[in-house]
């Protein structure tokens, strides 16, 4: 089956990202596909390339990137929720006159319509919050 995941919990604040990653890897091991992970609400912080947890803790940003690299899972971040919270790509940083940025590929800023499309396209949508 094709699954969509909606992640609304912030890294190192909520266990939701850990649960979602564990779920994602097991899904793939069981032979399912993941149509996309959509980050919304506090979940947009997962996309921050600037997170720097201690070496002996899971780096959630890196873990998402690895999931993408190994399985081409799209990592979509709600642009409105992200910009409000200071998560932005180089292009958005320029557009908003900011000196730095913290979101890079494979994370993509996208509209909320992408979440609705994911929900309609996938056989299952599972929320982690």
């Amino acid at each position: 089956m094709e699954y969509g995941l909606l992640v609304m919990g912030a890294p190192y604040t909520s266990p939701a990202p850990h649960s979602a990653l564990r779920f994602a890897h097991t899904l793939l091991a069981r032979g399912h596909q993941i149509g996309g992970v959509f980050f919304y609400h506090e979940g947009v912080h997962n996309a921050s390339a600037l997170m720097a947890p201690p070496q002996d803790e899971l780096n959630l940003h890196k873990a998402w990137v690895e999931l993408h690299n190994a399985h081409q899972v799209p990592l979509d971040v709600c642009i409105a929720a992200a910009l409000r919270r200071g998560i932005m790509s180089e292009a958005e940083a320029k557009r908003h006159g900011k000196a730095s940025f913290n979101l890079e590929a494979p994370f993509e800023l996208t509209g909320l319509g992408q979440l609705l499309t994911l929900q309609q396209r996938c056989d299952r949508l599972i929320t982690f919050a």
Partner: protein
Amino acid sequence: MLHILTKAPDSDAAQQMLQAVGENDAIILTEAGVQAALHSEWGGFQLHSARIFLLAEDVTAWGLDDAVASQALTAVDIDGFIALTEQHVQTVTWY
């Protein structure tokens, strides 16, 4: 329908979930939801005991294996969690 509860049994999320659970629905308790193992009087167990599952990894992490065993609750691993989402077209998370 499968209901995922990630908050403790005395939370607003848990109360709202209980109002929404129907006859053929299943419930999986994850994250803080596994604390329900400490509350045998929780409404969920009264109403839907046969269809409640606890995520084993979270049960162990929270130190609740004995509570689950002594109450004869059903723990499933993450494969079991995914199997539940395969069986139910609709999944709602209460958080």
